[in-house]
């Protein structure tokens, strides 16, 4: 993946965020990772940087203290500048309806965090692999 792409991680659980970061790095992904633990600051950042030259990739948790990940997803997909940024939902919820809803709203990948760490690490590494092939559009 182009190093110009910034990974925006919206995750309220510091532990999860750390584990995700660790495993992304282990997968050999060197892109900068920006972490937000609540929805509003994340949205603020995205709105500011959506207009800049940097391309963005969003890692989104659905359970946030101030809003749901679904709200953020909706806002992103309705924003002219951010619409094309890939969104990867990474959450503990494996409810079918929730998953369907996320895909309907335009998320690119939906990943459930497994408790089994082996699987968790594996999933993130696969995601890293995915990062290395995914083409992120240059923002406008």
């Amino acid at each position, binding site marked *: 993946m182009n190093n110009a792409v910034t990974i925006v991680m919206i995750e309220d659980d510091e532990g*999860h965020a750390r584990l995700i970061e660790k495993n992304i790095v282990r997968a050999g992904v060197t892109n900068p990772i920006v972490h937000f633990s609540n929805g509003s600051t994340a949205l603020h950042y995205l709105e500011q940087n959506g207009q800049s030259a940097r391309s963005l990739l969003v890692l989104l948790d659905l359970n946030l203290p101030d809003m749901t990940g679904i709200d953020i997803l909706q806002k992103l997909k309705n924003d002219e500048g951010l619409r094309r940024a890939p969104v990867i939902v990474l959450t503990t919820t494996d409810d079918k309806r929730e998953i369907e809803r996320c895909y309907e709203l335009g998320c690119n990948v939906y990943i459930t965090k497994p408790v089994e760490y082996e699987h968790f690490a594996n999933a993130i590494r696969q995601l890293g692999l995915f990062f290395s092939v995914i083409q992120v559009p240059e923002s406008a």
Partner: protein
Amino acid sequence: MQLAPLVSRLKPARLREAPLFLGGAFAVLIIVVLASTALLGLSQRLLNEIDAGVRIQQKANDVLVLLRRMESGQRGYLLTGDEDFVSAYRESVPIIPQALADLNNEIKNNPEQERLWRELEPVVRKKLDEMAQTIRLFESGDRDAALNLVRSEAGLRYMEDIRRLTQDMKDIQARQLGEHYRDARRQEWLLIGVNLAAISLIIIIGFIAILIVRRANTAMTKAQTVLRDVNAELEANVAARTAELKQANEEIQKFAYIVSHDLRSPLVNIMGFTSELETLKGELFERMAALQQSHSNGSAPALDAPLNEKDQVLADDFDEALSFIKASITKMDRLINAVLVISREGNRTLRPEEVDMNGLLTNMSDAMAHQAQEADARIDIGPLPSLTSDRLALEQIFSNLLDNALKYLRPDAAGHIRVNGRTEGNKVVIEVEDNGRGIDPKDRERVFELFRRAGPQDKPGEGMGLAHVRALVRRLDGVITVKSTPGEGSTFVVTLPRAPLSSSKRMPA
């Protein structure tokens, strides 16, 4: 609205006496009819007596007239000697005994008349003798003797007596007739009175009967209204309760769902960082060994150096602690997943369809053939009734029960699992019977509880199978019970409605 006062309002105190009243009315009518009949009988007898009285008067008159005729014949003959006169006398002689007998016959049972008769009869005989004697004397030519006999006035006195006596008889009869007529008239009035009373009674009874029927109708209508009210109330109550239950259930579902999700989140961290610790520990001890080696022999630290004994114990303790933590986390994850599965099952919409239970169970036992063979067990599926229910739920219920039956067999006996079914009214009963280890009486309720298991814990499992089964059976409006003899086997009895109680409803789990 309370039921008790409503029901007491339905008690028609008067109505319960209605049969009694109607019975009484009927008895009164019968009495009236009997009285009328009796009165008619009495009238008949009176009429007969009146008839008899009239006949006595006639007969008495007949005797008097006959005697008068004989006397006038006798007198005429004595005066003129004309045979024409004596023929009138002679004609009457054979008739008079009959007339007397007739009169005697009529006055029987009439003491007053009989007394007069006893006076009359000798006088009549004397008169007849007198007349016969005068005629005999006259015919023998002794006209004077005959006339002397007449002049003696004995015959006149006899005749006068007879006239008086017959007149007395007629008078008595006239008096008695008068009494009889009075009686008859009184009876007539009585009859009319009785009949009028009967008619009034009938009208009154009819009126009261109409009143009773009207009151019964009013009571019935009232009862129906009350019943309708109670029913409506009841339905409203049931609907309200059902709604409350549904809401409570939905809240529980939501709660279970949220709790299990929120529990999972920290679990990911615990597991993740425990694994990270494990990796760190590996690296740490590797470096320790290498450092120790280089320290003892002065060489450069090598990564594959062995640990010394003390450090090895430390490393093993580390591993043990970590493996306990990880095993516990894995178990907790499984439990949370179990709660999730059940809570999710409760949210699923049931789709009732006609299910051939024979086919369903046979397919299931075929799929378990390998498992059964390993357990040295045989599964027999008896003829089973089909029912209309949710196929997925039924599959889950019976696969869990069969699975359990195979799982908890006795090692010392060949397993035999039988599935039998029958229809009971609008219910279907299916029994899953095994000859396995059985369940201790104190555990029979416990086995249906979430995360609870019974007997020796020598088989893997979360203790959720039967909890799930019971939740499913309840959702299908059924009941599951267990009969068991420890050491001999268990029978799980599933009773399900043959068709859903109301179509396509979402029942609480």
